[in-house]
């Protein structure tokens, strides 16, 4: 695992909703855990998130959703692939009905954190995913 530079994580909200208590808390968790957090206001479009993920060279994208905006995360996954950013793992946090978990996992989402997920679970999962993504990028043949 590359531990020389801290992991960079984009914490954002796509779509229409603006409840940002969750994204702010998770951003603070990740910052406290030594990661660099690129934080956006809510209401980002899919294209804006892709551009930020690219420009900010992040190791992972975290999308927070409270009221159904997770339904456009599959569009985000497709747009990331189109921009050759398929190596950047995406995690979703917030309110995602059980019956729609498959929709997100099938689209390539790496993890879903529902309400009440423990701090350690979030931090450790993000760290592992970011580490794996960075390893894969830096050592493509191992």
């Amino acid at each position, binding site marked *: 695992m590359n531990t020389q530079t801290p992991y960079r994580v984009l914490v954002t909200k796509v779509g229409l909703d603006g409840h940002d208590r969750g994204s*702010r808390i998770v951003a603070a968790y990740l910052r406290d855990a030594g990661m660099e957090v690129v934080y956006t206001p809510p*209401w980002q479009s899919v294209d804006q998130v892709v551009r930020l993920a690219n420009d900010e060279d992040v190791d992972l994208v975290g999308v927070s959703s409270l009221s159904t905006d997770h339904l456009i995360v599959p569009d985000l996954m497709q747009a990331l692939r189109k921009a050759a950013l398929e190596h950047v793992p995406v995690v979703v946090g917030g309110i995602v009905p059980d019956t729609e978990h498959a929709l997100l996992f099938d689209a390539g989402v790496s993890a879903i954190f529902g*309400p009440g997920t423990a701090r350690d679970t979030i931090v450790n999962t993000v760290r592992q995913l970011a580490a794996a993504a960075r390893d894969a990028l830096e050592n493509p043949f191992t």
Partner: protein
Amino acid sequence: MNRRAEQQQPKGYEKAETQWHDDYRRDIGDAQPVHNRSGVPIEPLYGPSTDPGAAHLEHLGLPGQLPYTRGIYPTMHRGQTWSQRQLIGHGTPAEYNERVLKMIDAGTTAISLIPCNSVYRGNDCDEIPLPLLGTCGTVVNTAEHMDHALSQVDIAAISTAMNDPSPFTLLSFVLNVADRRAVPWQQISGTSNQSDYLSHFIANHMFFRLSLEGARRVLLDHIAFCRERVPNWNPLSVVGQHMQQAGATPAQAMGFTLCSALQYGRDCLQRGLDPDDFLPRFTFFFDISMSLFEEVAKFRAGRRLWARLTLEQLGATTDRARRFKFHGQTSGADLTRQQPLNNIARVTTQAIAGILGGLQSLHTDAFDEVINVPNEDPARIAVATQNILREEAGLCDVIDPLGGSWYVENLTDEMEKTIVAVIDTVENAGGMYAAAESGLVQRMIGESALAWQDRIDTGDQKIVGVNCYRVPEEKDNHAVPPTVRPAKDKMQAHVDQLRRFKTDRSQAAVQQSLTALARAANSTDDNVFARVVEATAAGVTHGEVIACLRQELGFGQPLIVD
């Protein structure tokens, strides 16, 4: 206090208290001190030393008497229980109408309309990805849509609460519908919920916002217009709910909300409006958390403070202008994803707190709200919870039943002090408008949210099913019904219909109205809301009104503070 205490205490009390105190210290060991969510230290026992005694009348008053600590009406829930105002909104206007007519058949006298998130964000439905439409509210973009949504609803008789942020297009549509049905505007009653733009800037980014300055202007135009032309409409609901849901403590939420109300009151005074006329039309909207006694004390202290502030700061002279009318909503943030049926117990506890706190109107959350937009069964249980509390629990038999409790009176005083400290912080920063602009309030709320989360993460604050009393994943969640999404074909037809409407209407009339609206926005004496009402009557859509005002008055980006 001590002088009062001597008057109140029966003979031998002091000795008995000392005895209890010694026994308590011996048995309790070194248990940690207890603080409520607002940081007020809580003693293990309260006694007569905190009884207000001779100051009773001026400090508490009787129900319906200043300072309204015990309630704003002489009869409170004995006379009229709270309005049961459940938020509803889903799908197309036709789907909304079907649901609302069922509710009216079942005896509802007050309805609400929650628009789709796309409406909140200032868009028409033809600009938004189909999967996001109608999932959290009804897609209403035109006066026609509102006419469908309220088809067969007697709008002269029923009170209508609209979640209708600036520039208030939903009320505009209702007034257009009233004109079509030859209903005089004087007969339209209800409330512009989500009219408190400061609360949106500070704590809830669900809503499209004009620039702070633009939002301030349009709200004042809206209030002035309604006072003159729609006299039974409440043009302003001051919201503490967003702040508490975003993490503010109960005392902070109350303090900030009173500061917002003061700001709006002062703005109205500056506009030349009469406080005895506009203040009775101010309403409040609060969150009710699990901290039962703290919430009761919050509401009692809030009533007392508002009675004082309206007199001292806003120059109200009538009793009516000093009444603190509020709607309460049980706290979604306190519900848990884990063991979701437990949320029924939580909502019940929160509702009891609100009722004992003397609310005028109540929304109870459905237990599945933390998982999806409420399904029919959970929504029915939420309504039943209110019915059970009203009909079976005896909560309405006595007015302010916790009044006179040594603990609750003391806590009301302590909460009041804490709230006053919050108000002082904001007032010293130049008032709520300036404090929102500088990010002060956002920062305070963010800190409280993190501190609360920290208490949960460390286990200091126990949350059943989250950090204690957990059950294995496979035994959890069986009670939750599947998520129902709006029918895609109906929504697609709705979008197509709007596109046809935009093509078929008189383009000249639309252009003329938009020009008049833009001119009003740039003038200092024309009323922007009056031009919104004219524009929507001429077929201008919600998204077009917003696009025009955004162009003229600017957009309010959220202020991100660390």
